[in-house]
């Protein structure tokens, strides 16, 4: 066997973590569950658990918060990355500031209106590292990508960026979520190739 270098003879883009390839202009859809038929009117975002005041924002209240856009690269554990893409929404820091984070909080569980959950260390979603987004490339976030709104945590594999986001619960311990209970890594750092449990 064996001709060929993989990577099509191109210089590998330094923005690509190990084991990833550039999917170009496409944006693959990966979903484990039936997509909920969720409209902007039905959508809400709740922050509770170890906060000073549990709070819920509906679509309009969330849109009254300081808007933010993010530009960068996203990485899926199934090996595709999408480089130089943009999302618009509100920083998670803004929501957390309004709820008031208690000092004992160390982790969050993000959950979707569909019932999906994923766990994250608090430090991975604060300090300008996570957003609730409703725009992609300047247009409303398509339903199949989690519209009306999803979480965006671009430093981690994209299963952490829960589609159809419904809220986050702040905890003083780590609680594995949907995929983390099913063989995938607890953290999911693409640069460390943390794909599966034990990686």
């Amino acid at each position, binding site marked *: 066997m064996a001709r060929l270098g993989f990577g099509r003879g191109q210089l590998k883009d330094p923005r690509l973590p190990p084991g990833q390839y550039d999917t170009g202009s496409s944006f693959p859809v990966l979903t484990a569950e*039936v997509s909920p038929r969720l409209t902007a009117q039905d959508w809400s975002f709740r922050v509770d658990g170890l906060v000073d005041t549990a709070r819920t924002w509906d679509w309009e209240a969330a849109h009254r918060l300081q808007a933010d856009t993010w530009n960068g690269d996203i990485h899926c554990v199934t090996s595709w990355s999408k480089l130089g893409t943009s999302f618009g929404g509100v920083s998670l820091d803004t929501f957390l500031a309004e709820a008031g984070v208690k000092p004992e909080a160390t982790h969050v569980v993000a959950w979707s209106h569909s019932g999906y959950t994923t766990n994250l260390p608090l430090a991975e979603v604060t300090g300008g590292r996570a957003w609730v987004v409703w725009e992609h490339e300047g247009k409303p976030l398509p339903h199949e990508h989690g519209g009306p709104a999803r979480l965006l945590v671009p430093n981690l594999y994209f299963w952490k960026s829960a589609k159809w986001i419904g809220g986050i619960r702040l905890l003083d311990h780590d609680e594995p979520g949907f995929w983390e209970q099913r063989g995938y890594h607890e953290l999911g750092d693409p640069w460390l190739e943390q794909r599966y449990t034990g990686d």
Partner: protein
Amino acid sequence: MTDGLPPLPSLPGLDLPPLPTLGPVSRQVPPSGARRRWLPAEVTAIRDETATARTFRLRIRGEAPDRHVPGQHYDVRLTAPDGSTAQRSYSIASAPDRADEVELTVELIPDGEVSPFLHEEIGVGDRVELRGPFGGWFVWRGDTPALLLGGGSGVVPLMAMRRFWHDSGERVPLRLLVSVRRPEDLYYRGEYGSETTVIHTRQAPPGDPRPAGRLSADDLRPLLTGGQIAYVCGSAGFSEHASQLLVSLGMPAADVRIERFGPG
């Protein structure tokens, strides 16, 4: 294996509403525990399924991996002479009859990086590396009635389930629906029994009473027997369409599992 309820994120002393959940889980830590390693595997047989799909039988060398559960996948890693590597995931097509031999069916993506290499360069006796088996959601242990819906290469993990079901005595009801464009696109031809319905979306075979066309509620209604877990695998369009049809026919969304090939 017993499926327990997932631990809900809770805090003693705080009165919080329950979070929504997708239902029972079993924590899928590999039985062998530790980090999965890359294992060398030798190609022992190659079979054409269609003009663009090929099945590779692989014998895993060295330490035996865990026996897979139907629906799981392996990661395949290829290394070029210059040391560069590429890895992709492939669902296991074979029944879990042995731990050290598996079959993967790979569809040729003409402008792809890995699938053309597997199709055009790999022969019997060659080696690749495998890591797995992985996957703890799109799995069927043979203990619940199952409704399997596959489009295109999405039939691969469903075939592992169908083969397992058959080999273990067809103890629970199982229905399989395979959606293909044209008759010549059907994988695993000759292996289906009365549990399987094949529908054609572009071109039906001569004499088929069902005209070619997209999967419809009428195709699915006769397959719903109640109490089934549905497994849907295929393109994004197929999976979305098929799963919405199931829900519109009254199947609880929590009983529908979709494989669009792993988490995002």
